[in-house]
């Protein structure tokens, strides 16, 4: 997956829009900052998420970090293979490392998210 086609949050999640379905994961930058991943917890099917709401957590040997929904919607698919294959997340965060898919009503809300250049600037300026 080419990051140029994705939208980003300042909390390091990415989002890809296909019609009214959004695929969500965390960025290569986040994965690198977390170091060795040991655990990921994803939400249940059918859960209604509001933009900014915590939908799961990812744990590394260093820290446990919350995952924030970039957009509002209902969970319609979960990457169930991911908890047992964290390498997929480390090696291919924008592809095999996807986490959840949401059905969203207001697709225009994605316009408020960062594009790739904006996100890279944010990572840079945050002094990382």
């Amino acid at each position, binding site marked *: 997956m080419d990051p140029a086609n994705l939208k980003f949050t300042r909390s390091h999640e990415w989002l890809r829009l296909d019609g009214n379905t959004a695929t969500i994961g965390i960025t290569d930058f986040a994965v690198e900052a977390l170091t060795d991943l040991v*655990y990921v*917890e994803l939400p249940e099917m059918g859960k209604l998420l509001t933009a900014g709401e915590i939908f799961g957590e990812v*744990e*590394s*040997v*260093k*820290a*446990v970090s*919350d995952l924030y929904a970039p957009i509002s919607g209902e969970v319609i698919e979960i990457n169930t293979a991911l908890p047992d294959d964290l390498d997929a997340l480390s090696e291919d965060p924008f592809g095999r490392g996807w986490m959840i898919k949401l059905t969203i009503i207001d697709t225009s809300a994605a316009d408020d998210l960062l594009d790739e250049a904006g996100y890279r600037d944010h990572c840079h300026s945050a002094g990382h």
Partner: protein
Amino acid sequence: MAYLFNTADDIRSMLETIGVESIEEFFEQIPAHLQLDRPLDLPSGLSEPELETHLRELAAASHGASSRVCLMGGGVYDHFIPAAVDEIASRGEFYTAYTPYQAEASQGSLQAFFEFQSLICQLTGMDVSNASLYEGGTAVSEAVFMAMRVTKRFGRVVVLGSLHPEYQQILETYLGGLGCQLDVIATPDGTADVQIVRDSLDSETSCLVIQQPNVFGALEELESLCQAAHDVGALAISSFDPISLGLLKSPAECGADIAVAEGQSLGIPAQYGGPYLGILTCRSKHVRQMPGRLIGQTVDRHGRRCFVLNLQAREQHIRREKATSNICTNQGLLALRATVYLALLGRQGLLDVSELCCRKAHYAAERLGELPGLELMFSRPFFKEFTLRYHGDATELIDRAATAGFDLGPALGRFPRLRESLGEAADQTLLVAVTEQRTREEIDRLVESLAATPSTSAAPQTLSKPA
């Protein structure tokens, strides 16, 4: 910790540094009406010899379990403590409960906690034990919070009325602040009626808390109760007596998801108010919701065995307000005592202690039950402790026994939370616990002295149990 006092010179130099003349002038910034205008109402200091005499007098006024015959129960028991427990636990290397924040620098302590966890897992059959909590009551509360996080059901907790009333009280205090409903199911027969428990559980219930043996000493139908919890998707929490596991089925075999205990019986003296030892164990799948420290075994870069803190990222100093618990330390010194105790006893030793307690308790129950005015409150199987009903006020019987050098109790009338289960008999009931330390001769003497001393209560009458 050293006591460092300020000399007159110290005080003068500090006042000079900040540029005031006197302590009084320093305190002038506090409004006069808020200042105390008289000396504190404290007795004057004692000299060292006077202090020593005073403390010796206080100590002489106390009676320890060793100078009397202790048959007291209610969560703390007079089990034998081998001398090696004190010897090892008082070594300077171990004589602190704390590990530094770089815990791996204390390999010896970590190894002791790792051994503790391993022994507790063997004892309970559970997959994981943490490195201990403060004591049995908070362990029950922590288990309940864990169950709420695992089931994501934050609104309702169900406990049996036969759970230790002080554990109930601790839980109530915690849950009061969380807006969670706590339902207590009374146990008028001494143990829970499984069908009544089933009917009271629902799909909103996070967990069912069961004490085994319960506060009355009686044995619950633990397996059926755990099953009842599972049938509504709730977790089953068992609060067990470690010594009882020499004879009874383990919490894991009975289906408990989280098993907790007061570990005082494992080499820790019965001392007023503690410190005691909280034990918390669970199934592997719930380990990420487990509070407290968890020690793991690994190898260093040279391939040598070493010990580390596991899942530390969930603890308070890293995860802050989202930590699994506000407890991120342990009862290291007391966990060490339990470790030494269990290691000394071994599997056979624990079985022997367990069997002795059980046989002696049944002998005592039989003899005491033959006395006029005394009977067993419940006709349920029990382990080392049982509830007696006296025809008068239970405290009167306790006082009579105390005069003869025997300590019984506590009287159950002092626990308001047990009244629903005990009914009108509440003030007539008391606990008696018999450990492996008691002898047949002591039990016979207790029975004889109670038979010989006159009761101040009304003449023996026929006892009727609450319906």
